[in-house]
């Protein structure tokens, strides 16, 4: 396959002629930019790329991409995208969704697309609020959140999107945020290149209904101390001088420590390829609030056969075993008799 032609495209080839209509200052703009900057690097063609979304602010995304696209039904994007990807394994299929879309009304479809390992790149814009419907709490909103639908504070325990994905044994799980285009691009590229279901949570700021939700972690002044960059094969450490790290205690709990106290050798070495998702799960749950050190990057990336590929293989096997379908023989397959 040395003569495969890699399509050469530019960012503008991926931009549709539609006016982008998110609120000024919305984090979605940065994510759209990152994706549009990335596409030429992927060596794929717009006509072979499909963006499927559900309903919500983030789900307007397909309109802005000059690819095939569908703005579908609230929560159903993973199911509809499964149909596209299984019917056509030759396509690059992306799902753009939000915290309400993917984790509330569409929770079932999300976990099943992940467990089946359908070849999809799922981008979940997590802004921890319902934006399109103007400010109700979402399944990722923190307990106690006061919104229009929770005037006395939310009593719902929130989902941790990565823990949900890991619980469904997703084969690729990562986190990034809307303020760092380079980081987004590298995570999106790895997610795209991964065969099977890739799940990326993007911390996205909704400056209208939930401004600065992630500021204490991803804000310029906090990043160094609160963002933990996961690098496969490297000890997990962070801080301006790399002075903090993560260790596993004898009780199996992950803890944040000072490297100077425990020594570098005691630090946990990140292994994204571990078959067991347990450690990735523990990392996903390292931070329990919105102002503690929080890991970013690729939590898990393992090889597992992708669903559409397996469906295609069964279709091929059946063809080899039984020969191509013949309608006349099918109609006779239960035995016949002749009336003369």
């Amino acid at each position, binding site marked *: 396959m040395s003569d495969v032609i890699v399509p050469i495209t530019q960012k503008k080839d991926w931009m549709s002629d539609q006016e982008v209509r998110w609120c000024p200052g919305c984090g979605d703009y940065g994510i759209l930019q990152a994706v549009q900057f990335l596409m030429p690097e992927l060596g794929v063609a717009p006509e072979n790329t499909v963006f499927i979304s559900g309903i919500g602010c983030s789900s307007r995304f397909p309109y802005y991409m000059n690819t095939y696209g569908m*703005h579908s*039904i609230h929560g159903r994007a993973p199911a*509809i995208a499964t149909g*596209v990807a299984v019917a*056509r394994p030759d396509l690059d299929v992306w799902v753009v969704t939000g915290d309400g879309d993917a984790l509330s009304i569409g929770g079932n*479809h999300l976990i099943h697309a992940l467990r089946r390992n359908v070849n999809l790149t799922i981008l979940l814009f997590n802004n921890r609020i319902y934006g399109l419907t103007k400010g109700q709490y979402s399944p990722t909103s923190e307990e106690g959140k006061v919104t229009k639908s929770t005037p006395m504070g939310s009593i719902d325990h929130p989902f941790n999107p990565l823990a949900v994905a890991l619980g469904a044994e997703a084969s690729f799980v990562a986190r990034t945020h809307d303020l760092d285009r380079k980081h987004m691009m590298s995570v999106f590229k790895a997610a795209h290149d991964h065969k099977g279901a890739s799940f990326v949570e993007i911390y996205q700021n909704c400056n209208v209904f939930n401004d600065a939700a992630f500021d204490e972690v991803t804000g310029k002044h906090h990043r160094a101390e609160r963002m933990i960059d996961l690098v496969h094969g490297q000890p997990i450490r962070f801080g301006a001088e790399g002075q903090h790290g993560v260790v596993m205690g004898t009780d199996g709990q992950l803890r944040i420590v000072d490297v100077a106290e425990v020594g570098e050798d005691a630090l946990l070495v990140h292994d994204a390829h571990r078959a067991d998702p347990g450690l990735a799960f523990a990392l996903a749950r390292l931070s329990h609030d919105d102002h503690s050190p929080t890991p970013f990057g690729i939590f898990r990336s393992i090889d597992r056969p992708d669903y559409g590929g397996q469906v295609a293989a069964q*279709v091929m096997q*059946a*063809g080899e075993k039984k020969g191509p379908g013949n309608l006349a023989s099918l109609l006779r397959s239960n035995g016949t008799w*002749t009336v003369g």
Partner: protein
Amino acid sequence: MNPAALKADLHRLEQNGLLIVNSDAFEARDLEKAGYDHNPLHDGSLDTYRLVEIPMTSLTQKATEPLGVKARDAERSKNFFALGLVSWLYSRPVEPTISWIESRFKDLIKESNLAAFKAGFNFGETSELFDHPYEVKPAELTPGEYTNISGNVALAWGLVAAGQLAKLPVFLGSYPITPASDILHELSKHKNFGVRTLQAEDEIAAAGMALGAAFAGHLGVTTTSGPGVALKSEATSLAVSLELPFLLVDIQRGGPSTGLPTKTEAADLNIAMYGRHGEAPLPIVAAYSPANCFDAAIEAARIALKYRTPVILLSDGYLANGSEPWCLPDPATLPDISVPFTTEKNHVNPDGTEEFWPYLRDPETLARPWAIPGTPGLMHRVGGIEKEDGRGDISYTPDNHSKMVHLRAEKVARIANDIPPATITGDADADVVLLGWGSTWAAIDAAVQRTRRAGTKVAWIHLTHLNPLPANLGELLRSFRHVLVPELNMGQLCRIVRAEYLVDAKPVTKVQGLPFTSAELEAAIQETLS
């Protein structure tokens, strides 16, 4: 019959009909259990029937005694005595039953059942309790090659055929539900036809997957029954808006909710017609016999593909599990239902540049172009938000929405010109016409034949397309004094034709989870005419 069966089913027997009872089962205790305070065999209440009393229990005991079967165990073989008796009565060959018993049972139970069966047969021959055996002549079948087919298998094969005739892979998204699951099972066996089947996490996903596959260029199908139709309503409405080919197959059962999952009913016509949000009309095709499920599946696919619309195909539990001899069609005579994908831009701007407009319609069918992912230059976005006529961009303009609602309705309405006109069976000059649809076909057929044989004129129209209705239907119905609409629901089609044509159609309804009997329909005809 025993007393309980007599009580439950006597109303189904015609006057002067043959009534065979197991006289051993009419002891005081049995009568009391069935709720009789006296013995109906002796009070004259059965005088209008031809009553034959046979001590089946004791005869079976005697027949099996030499084998060493205890009296109590012989009870269990008495149904075979009855089967042997009926086999004689209707001159049926015994060999198939004997070999079935031999393959099905073992040891003493096998011997006991065989002895009871033969004893029953011989009893008929020697007892002189009956005047003569009946002979049911083999049905008059047109020459050809036949197979026995059930509705669900025929429907599954029809979908396979539709894929072949459309030159498209079939993609089935489905969630197990009675009585539709057998279609999923059957289609799963035929991957060598390029069929892909996916057992989804729920009904909603099953519909979504089929719609996604349709967007990607497959023949997208989802199969279900009543409650599943409700769950698929959302995706079906999107399919109306996206204007993509999409097949929703509903094997109706008794409802609402879980209702009577294993019993038949045809009460989903309303949800098929109206069960979506917004103005969302779609074509509806209904199968009328097990074998007809094959043709109905091809026809539903033809309409979906040609008009880029979701289509609902209605069958029911009675057709799904019922079977009949089917004269096999020659695949070469089946219609070509393929439609071309759009591969070229279709609009030229004033400045000479070319564009692809996903909602630029065919002037005749009003179908929009179907351009699938992978086609260079035709990238476009579709969605549930209202689209601008032609160009397909999001549009909230009042006039445009009105125009699109009307266009989508007009597209479905025009299908009336592309389906066969309604035809009359029986007497066109009769006073009464029966208007049927779906599985009532067999009962109406028998009722019409018997009424006409008895010298009464009657006409019959059976619909295979319920939306749009055949263009000539109103005119036909208006030419009769009485219009009767037999349906296994509370009169759903009846209300549609009354509203559509202002004819004084009368419903004949049944909602017992059972099909009509021809006697019930015959009675309805006579009552209308008297």
